[in-house]
């Protein structure tokens, strides 16, 4: 009964509209910030080009049964998009610091819609970045089938929405942008070292593997490797450097998305 009366006062189309506008604002701010758009593409490519080539000389194909640059590139896409998604939630702290958040909080939009809108915005920004980065793949002699490309994009959405929700969860109670960026570094650093983006987690000691099993980034990195490299490498080759099978990655990330979204909403409501 209470539910019905609420729907009447705040109908579904109004809900979707408010969700859309919160999402739209995030995208608008991203596109207007041309330096951010540029670095979001340029920096990962720089890492792949310089760091990837550098590591490749240390680990030539005679030792590794696969091309290190291809391995590195697929990992960096996961890492770059995840960092983009989580740092985009900085806008919540920024909005709070500059007062705009109060304008949203005093409006009749439900709190869960605000959280969802922010997550969708951060995910979209990460998706834009991921798509642009995927266009580089032919230059690294990686072939991606159209169907795999679509699957990759869907996977990027599943992966990054959870990471964005994690960002909202942490941003929900923080009042200063400085403290949030410090917190982000503390979260991002261990997560990316144990993501498997730089080196395969397969040959590491058990305790590291156990930790990686709880790291959503490791699922994102592995999932993307399965999808991006599926046409370039054989299944056996990919198995050599992935910790989780694709199914596990998707399954884990969907569960993670739901849990962290609910936690983020709870924390945002206070």
């Amino acid at each position, binding site marked *: 009964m209470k539910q019905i009366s609420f729907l009447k006062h705040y109908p579904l189309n109004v809900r979707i509209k408010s969700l859309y506008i919160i999402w739209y604002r995030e995208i608008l701010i991203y596109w207007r910030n041309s330096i951010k758009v540029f670095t979001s593409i340029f920096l990962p490519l720089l890492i792949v080009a310089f760091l990837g080539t550098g590591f490749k000389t240390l680990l030539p194909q005679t030792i590794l049964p696969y091309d290190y640059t291809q391995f590195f590139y697929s990992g960096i896409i996961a890492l770059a998009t995840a960092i983009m998604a989580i740092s985009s939630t900085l806008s919540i702290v920024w909005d709070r610091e500059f*007062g705009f958040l109060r304008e949203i909080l005093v409006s009749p939009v439900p709190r869960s819609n605000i959280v969802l809108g922010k997550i969708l915005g951060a995910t979209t920004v990460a998706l834009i970045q991921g798509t642009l980065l995927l266009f580089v793949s032919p230059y690294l002699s990686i072939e991606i089938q159209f169907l795999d490309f679509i699957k990759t994009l869907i996977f990027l959405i599943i992966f990054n929405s959870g990471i964005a929700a994690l960002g909202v969860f942490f941003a929900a109670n923080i009042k200063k942008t400085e403290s949030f960026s410090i917190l982000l570094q503390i979260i991002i650093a261990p997560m990316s070292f144990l993501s498997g983006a730089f080196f395969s987690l397969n040959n590491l000691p058990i305790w590291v593997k156990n930790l990686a099993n709880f790291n959503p980034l490791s699922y994102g990195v592995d999932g993307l490797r399965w999808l991006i490299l599926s046409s370039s490498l054989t299944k056996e080759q990919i198995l050599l450097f992935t910790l989780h099978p694709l199914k596990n990655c998707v399954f884990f990330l969907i569960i993670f998305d739901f849990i962290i979204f609910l936690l983020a909403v709870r924390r945002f409501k206070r």
Partner: protein
Amino acid sequence: MEEIETDLENNNTSEIIQVENLKKNYNGFTALKGISFSVKRGEIFGFLGPNGAGKTTTINILATLILPTSGVVYVNGYNVLSRPDMVRKSIGMVFQEVTLDTHLTAEENLYLHAYLYGVLKKEFNQRKREVLKLCELWEKRKWKVENFSGGMKRRLEIARALIHWPKILFLDEPTVGLDPQTRTKIWDYIFSTRKQKDTTIFLTTQYLNEAENCDRIAILDHGEIVALDTPENLKKMVGGDIIIFKTLDNDLAEKEFKAKFPQYKLKRIGKELKIEVENGDEFLPTLVKIITPKIISIELRRPTLEDIFLEVTGRKIREDEELEPGEEEPFNLASLFSLFNNKKNNK
């Protein structure tokens, strides 16, 4: 947006805001000590008090941004605790600090607001023109907000708060930090809004001369309402009008006055005599007649809210701030000019 007025018994009563015994504690600090008041539909209601009196706390509770510790609060017929969504829908809010998105243009800020409140697109275009014209920002609608001056930002915020035609407009210190010219302009907008839309306006201020524009004023001090009435009635509390006059022989004038009107108080302030009477304009001719020494000057003054605040709280409203100029060395403009003059002389 449709008007939803079902399942409400008290939506059409004359009181649009009802507050009973509202208390708020912040970790042991009592910000509000149980205040009660009500605001009538269509009136301009002012909350007057010094910094830290609890004005912003009250406005935030009314706008459902913070929860009350105890007490009952109804806004537009909805309880703030059980129906915050409907309360939020009925109100427009202008915060003390700027809450615009400075990345966006003025128009985009309004667009965003309209979407958050579910205003239809057709209505939005019409209202946008209306509110922007009202606040004289129509020509600047494509400007980015970061290029706006403080006064323009404030006006845009008022325009934005009106986009969804709220029943009540909350203004938390709408003119703080603005120059006097902009301040009067903002007040013009507030009045014209009330006229055009029959919106109830609830505002807080620490400026006494501004509070006089309200229909009714509540004076808040240390989390308590110390007085609540129309500005006229509040002024009557002081004891009517104030007459200050100066004569060639003040002693004689004092004697004469005391003999004729022992019921009125007469005070000597320096070389002037001050009396408080009920109907100053009618009393003035009689006063002139009974005083035989030559009158040098005479002044009839209505009591200001400053006098009232002094009366009800026993201190001036901005006591702490009024001390400051005395402590600080005042900037000497003359010394600056002499600096230029010296230079000229040297040449």
